[in-house]
């Protein structure tokens, strides 16, 4: 059904009039030009399209736009405040927790949701939480280290 959906996108009010069954992924990429939200599988199997809705990591490829009406949506474009890198981004950067970088926005946002909920995760918790985010380049070792480092530098004060 064609409908106007209002939500908060990266801290700013957003409105779009679309078929409300369209997926958040393609509305963000196509209608809002937010190309950091990646298409990897289209079936909630890889995590490349991860965004934050309210405080949870969500697969935007499996989320109809109507589900975010009235909610706060965060993509990686909105993560770095005042152009300063978020501590998770900083840790990914310093540890080179990426190679091709295609999975990286989804990884960072998944990690962000984890640290919101569990500011001091044990290694096993990191692995459990991140397990559905795939990385073909094999950057896993560095990603786990980066999340641990970010958790340390945020001193439990996730934002």
């Amino acid at each position: 059904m064609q409908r106007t959906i209002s939500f908060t996108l990266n801290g700013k009010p957003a409105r779009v009039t679309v078929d409300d069954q369209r997926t958040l992924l393609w509305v963000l990429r196509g209608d809002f030009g937010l190309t950091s939200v990646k298409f990897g599988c289209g079936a909630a199997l890889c995590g490349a399209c991860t965004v934050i809705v309210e405080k949870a990591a969500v697969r935007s490829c499996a989320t109809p736009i109507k589900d975010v009406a009235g909610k706060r949506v965060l993509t990686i474009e909105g993560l770095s405040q005042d152009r300063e890198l978020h501590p998770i981004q900083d840790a990914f950067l310093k540890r080179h927790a990426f190679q091709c970088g295609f999975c990286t926005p989804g990884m960072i946002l998944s990690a962000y949701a984890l640290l919101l909920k569990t500011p001091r995760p044990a290694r096993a918790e990191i692995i459990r939480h991140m397990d559905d985010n795939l990385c073909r380049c094999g950057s896993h070792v560095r990603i786990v280290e980066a999340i641990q480092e970010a958790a340390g530098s945020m001193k439990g004060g996730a934002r």
Partner: protein
Amino acid sequence: MSPENPTRREVLGLAGSGLFVIFPAQTPRPGYPADFNAYLRIDADGRVTCLVGKVELGQGSKTALAQLLAEELDVALESVDMVMGDTDVCPWDGGTHGSLSIRQFGPVLRGAAAEARAVLLELAAERLGAPVGRLQVKAGVVTDSQAAGQRVTYAQLVQGKRIERHLEKTPLKAVAGYTVVGQSPRRKDALDKVTGRAKYAGDMAVPGTLHARILRPPAHGATLKDADTTAAEKVAGVRVVKDGDMVAVLHERRDVADQVLDLIKARFDRPRPGQDDKTIFDHLLKAAPEGRVVDQSGDIVQGAQASENLVEKTYLNSYVAHAAMETHSATAMIEGGKVTVWVGTQSPFGVQQQVAQALGFTPQNVRVVTPYVGGGFGGKSAARQAIEAARLAKLTGKPVQVVWDRAEEFFYDTFRPAAVVTIVSGLTRAGKISVWDYKVYCAGDRECKQFYDIPHQRTVSAGGWSGASTPGLHPFGIGPWRAPSVNTNTFARESHIDILANKAGVDPVEFRLGHLSDKRVRRVLEAAAKQFDWKPAPTPSRRGVGVACAIYLGTYVATMAEVTVDKSTGRVEVKRVVCAQDQDVTVSPDGSRQQMESSITMGLGYALTEEVRFKDGEVLERNFDTYRIPRFSWLPKIETVLIENPETPASGCGEPPIVTMGAVVANAIFDAVGARMFQLPMTPARILEALKRG
């Protein structure tokens, strides 16, 4: 035009000043200038631009190449800009394949930088009135060692001048004097990638772009009979294109195009060639081209006679997908008779040719721009999607984007070929390998040669990993996959060596060392054993430890692993991996370690789960639910040991450890439970079967 890419005019700045070094082609090709391959330009503002046809696939070559350049030129790494993989501004290149960027291209780049430095020093000598021998350079500033305060910058030296030089044989810096190479700087792509600003081919936002979805056959070999597009045509804003065998729907929103594609009712003629993922191995043995002797010494018959008894085994591996996280993507735009295609490819100049041919354009009227590539591993050499986007742009008169979905990605992937290896070997009474008769079918001959000391041996290879080799051999496309042929050859060789060690009743490390005069293999093996704290024992020791060695294009690796095997489910968990690698000059130690970790992690996939199932030309893998790639929860404890050889030039090292992963896990499984695995991947079902076999 993409704001990120300059035009040729801007780069060569016809009116601009600067120093240009043109260096010779690596692989000359007809129709391309024979005398140069890449440009190095030093600007009047002191920035150094390097233009290369290579691309950044994720392995960090953008940074490593910049490091080599900065080193030889004595400039700060930050002042180097790399422009990569743009056919309009970068001279011809044969493609970015695996570990080869640094190996092949490093020496040329260093030569060019040394040439530029020599020219600049001559200019500086003139300017400062001092002989070249007295001059020193640091971060692009030339000083006179005997006259304090006398200084001039590279930028000042090229100001208002236009200097063009062809590469000559200028001496290179000695490794001992390196200050940039050997450091681990921040990668040049880091900020783009952690902020989400990195643009891939599907992120190019050209105004007015239509997103295309193309009707695909259900199986390889199927041909379209008819397609009813009536329903699709009724959807507002949709364009339906039928051109020859191509039926496509286009819309300005990708997800709308997805839905409209489903409205097409199509019928296909579908032959039933009869091959599937189980019958394929017999087919390959029958249909493989004739073998070629790759290496031979001694006399096989005599070697067999010297053996107590012969051990004859066959090793199999399935087709494996590249499965990069970014699916094949391209955006094409035609303007003024010239097409620009942004495409994630390992081979921009190859794509330029293909697109030119498909559109009937001259190559000069095709510009291929390579933005960031979301993983290649050999799978992004073929660029069917670029041709599709270009054709559709021509047919519709609009910019067109083609981004394959995951099923298309599996369907058109050029898989690592399924392969068979047979080995006949034997031990003398004294427990020495007396004979080795090795034949590899359809994997290719790279590194199939034996490096253990065996008096009588022969290595034969029948069929390679290039898709074009024998038509009809494979039911779909095949091609290079990270370290082509070497994964297959190492799995077979190192498994078989382990079997012989077991027959000899000797610890597998000791057994290997007893057959190794190659110093570099010995060195990595000893280094790995030390780090792993390997305790010698004959297999199966029930500890679940294994070892495998390999040589890959001049890099030496030894890997040790510890696994647990659940005998009731057949599930394997890899607990710990130690890998020692002996390589040439290391450009970035951190980069090398990262590549090692990554290829160990990726290698777990082909070892344990990755296998393309198919039947009658239909690829049964469509997404990551059935095609399982390594995940966080698989992660072993990984330890890497780097051994450097400063006397040899840098070679880059994206891949070597991956080649040992099949064998090291197989050998550790045998050590754990006494079951020998002869087929990759080693799925729980195959492990249960092997346990039953005993």
